[in-house]
Every structure is written in C-alpha cells, then in structure tokens.
C-alpha cells in the first residue's frame, strides 16, 4: 500500500504544481500564443513598464506592511490572552472570522463603512482597506501563535515573577523570546494574505485606490495575456519564498 500511496502523492503534487509551472514556462515564451517560439523576457519588461501595475503594486505593498504590523501585534496579544484563560466569545469571534465567506465579510464591512461615513467625513480608500485587512488577518495570527504557546511551560513565567519580574516584564523577557519564531511566521502569513486579497479589498477600496489583485483581476477578465503570465510568475516566486521561510520559522 505504501508504494500505491507514493504514486498517488506524486500525481496529486503534479496536479497542484503543474499549472503554475506551465504559466511560468509560458511567461518566457516569445510568442503571445500557445505555440512555443523561443525564450524571451519581453513580457517581464512590459510588466515593469506598466505604470498602473507598478502603482497598484506599491499600494498593495504599503497596505500589506501596515496591516501586517497591526494584525501581528493585536493577534499575538490576543493569542496570549486566550492561552492564559480561554474565552468563548473571543475564540468564537475569531473562528467566525476564519469561517465566514469572503463575500459576506466584504459586504458587511462595506455596509459598516457607508453607515459610518454618514457621521464622519471619510471616504473609502487605503485606510478602509487596511482596517479590513487587519480584521481578517488577526485570526490567522492567533492560530499560529497559539499553537506555539501550547508548548510553553507556564512555570517559566511564574519563575520569572518569583525572581522579581512584574507580570509584563515576565511576558517580555521570557515568553516573547520563546514566541519570536511563531510571531515572525504569523507576520509573513498575514503579509501574504493581505497581498493576495481580492474580494474584500475590491468592495472597500473605493475608486481611488487600486491594489495589485484588482489590476490582475481586471486583466484576467479580459482574457489571457502574456504580461499577466509574467506578473503571475513573479508574484508566485516572491510569495512562495516568503511562505517557505515562514514555514521554516514556525518549525524552528
């Protein structure tokens, strides 16, 4: 049975990875059609020359950095609090955030913002996107950090307090160093989620701010394009590296 499973695993891994590999191969195809006509980097050049694309990438990056920073901090603190004493409300809310379909989350946030904007002089823009991203990333941060906390001996914090450290000093000097790899892994995860989000972002971004997924989506709807192949490959390679790093850290 072991050999059968191994063969099966190879087939599934091929299924999972081949489409992206094929995309990568065709991103360096000189022809814009499916027939192979030689190696070329022209589509990457075109990608780097596209102002809209670059601007939206910049927006996405800014949003991702901001939301990652906020959600990592808030999520780590929440995970610690849950570890100290389970709270059905908080845990339930976070679980709900994980399980709710994106369209529902997006629509609810849109409704929230539109309602709030009757009383506050604001419009949809980068800040609403950041708020949205923070809110759905927190649950992922909590899952990663909490998993690491489950292997932490509570006696260590008590020992620190016994030796004169206040509650917060014990957390800062003993627990936090232990959590560092998980926090880094969670941050990378939050980053990739933020960079990739389309549904929620498109609903709450308003007309002025475009993110990279929004631009990609518009291009994809118009049909296949070799520049899009290049963009896709670039993103996959970058994010893939980040994810692998994150996994390494999480297991440290």
């Amino acid at each position: 049975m072991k050999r059968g499973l191994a063969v099966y695993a190879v087939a599934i891994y091929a299924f999972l990875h081949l489409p992206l590999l094929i995309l990568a191969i065709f991103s360096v195809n000189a022809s814009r059609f499916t027939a192979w006509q030689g190696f070329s980097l022209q589509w990457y050049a075109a990608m780097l020359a596209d102002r809209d694309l670059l601007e939206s990438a910049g927006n996405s990056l800014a949003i991702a950095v901001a939301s990652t920073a906020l959600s990592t901090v808030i999520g780590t603190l929440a995970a610690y609090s849950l570890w100290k004493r389970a709270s059905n409300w908080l845990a339930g809310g976070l679980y709900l955030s994980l399980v709710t379909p994106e369209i529902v989350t997006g629509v609810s946030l849109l409704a929230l913002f539109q309602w709030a904007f009757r009383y506050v002089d604001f419009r949809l823009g980068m800040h609403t996107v950041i708020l949205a991203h923070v809110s759905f990333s927190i649950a992922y941060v909590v899952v990663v950090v909490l998993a690491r906390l489950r292997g932490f001996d509570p006696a260590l914090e008590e020992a620190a307090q016994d030796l004169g450290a206040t509650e917060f000093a014990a957390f800062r000097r003993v627990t936090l160093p232990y959590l560092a790899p998980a926090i880094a892994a969670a941050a990378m995860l939050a980053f990739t989620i933020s960079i990739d989000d389309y549904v929620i972002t498109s609903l709450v971004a308003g007309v002025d701010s475009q993110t990279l997924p929004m631009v990609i989506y518009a291009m994809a709807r118009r049909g296949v394009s070799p520049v899009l192949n290049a963009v896709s490959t670039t993103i996959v390679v970058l994010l893939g590296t980040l994810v692998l790093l994150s996994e390494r850290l999480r297991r440290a």
Partner: protein
Amino acid sequence: MTRLRNLFAAPAAALMLVTIGVPAGIVCVYSVLSRGAYGGVELPWTLENYSRLIDPLYGGILVRSLALAAAATVICILLGFPLALFIAQSGTRKNLYLSLVILPFWTSFLIRLYAWMFLLRDTGLINTVLQSLGLIRQPLPLLYNNGAVLLGLVYGFLPFAVLPIYATLERLDKSLLEAAADLGARPIAVLTRVTLPLCAPGIGAAAILVFVPCLGTYITSDLLGGSKTILIGNLVQNQFSTARDWPFGAAVSIVLMIVAVLLMFTVRRRGEELL
C-alpha cells in the same frame, strides 16, 4: 494576573466587535429595509427581501451553489485523505511534503485560477496539445461552465482539506494501530476499522473548512464560469454593485452567514480546534 490578560485581549476584542459584530448588525437591519432610489437603503421596513429568496429564479442559484460546494467538498476529502495519509507516514520528509502542499495554497488564489484559465480556454494549452496530437478537431469547451468552476474549487481548496486531516492523523496514537495489527487486522482493515473512525473529527473540520468558503465563492465562478454560472457569491456581489439592491444583497448575505454558523456549530468540537 487578570488585568494583563484583559488588557491584551482588549484590542482584538474591540476590533472583532467593530468589524464583525457591528457590521453583522447593520447588515441584519439593511436586510429588512427597502431599496433606495440611488442605491443604499431607506424605509419602509419589509420582509420582502427574504421572501424573494424562495422565487424559483433564485432557488436555482441556491441549489447550484449547494451542489457545487458539496461536490467540491466530497472530492477534496476523497483526494485529500490519501495524501494526508502519505504525509503522515513519510517519516523524516514530513515537513518537506507538507510545505509542498502549503506552498501553492498560499501563493495567490487569483493567480492559480488564472493558470487554469490559461490551460482550459479554447486556445489554451490543453486544447492546443490535443488538437496537435490529432485527438480532436474542434477545441473542447473546457472553460466557462460548471465543470471548470468545480475544478477551480477543488484545486483551490484541496490543501484546506489535507491539513486538518493530516493534523488528526499525526496526533493518532500509533500504539492503537499496532494493537489492531497485533489482534490480526491486515493493513487495509486497520485503515478502515481504526484509522478512519479515529480521523472523523479531522474529516469533519476539513469538510467545514472547504464547504463554507466554496458555498460563498465569488472569483472562482466569475473567472472560470463566465456569465453562465451564477452562484450565491456572485449574486451578493451583484446586488452591491451593478444591481444596487442593498437590502436584497443583505438578505442573501444573512442567509449565507446563518448556514455557515450553523455548520460551524455542528462540527466544531472542544479540544479538536484551531483556537
């Protein structure tokens, strides 16, 4: 001790309240209001939005969404279980194999769907290869139908199914399997009589983690289904953009939410959780 814990929980709790609790309330309220002349909502109060859902036009959308989500879930679990088994039994290379599953999952759902568009369209790779091999003369309509959407869903959510099942398999007490073998069970029997039943919580978690997002999927059907496949997710999105019927969109959202929450409560177990 308590003060620090409460202080730490406060930002997350506040954020959850503001970004989940309050919006849920607002959407509930909107769902019983009427559609405004220029979009938005206005009085009078009405239950018409909910009664519209029973209309056969929308019923078809509901049924199609449920069917696709269910099919995707079943296929994901069927495909995912053997893979999870493989990884759990792979000894020292576990981390490598796990990374290979997680990797595609996290690198842009959007792009992964686009990759299938590239492969499936009339002038895409699959059709081109089949035609050049002489196996077909006309391109097969692989894209822009229910089948393509199902493929996209399975491709997208397979890792979601593999991970919880793997987690349960990993935590399985190996001595139980050894005991079964000791009592005379052959490998297949050990699998069906011991491993599978003990895996039930993991499979349940996998089912929920796949079914609910599939039910509410939006971009999969938009990109791979074209305009022919409208699912609940597309319906909701439509109401909040072109159709400008917020109350109806809100009602559909609420129904979707309730289904998700109900399923969550039926399958969620204490101790076998992520949180």
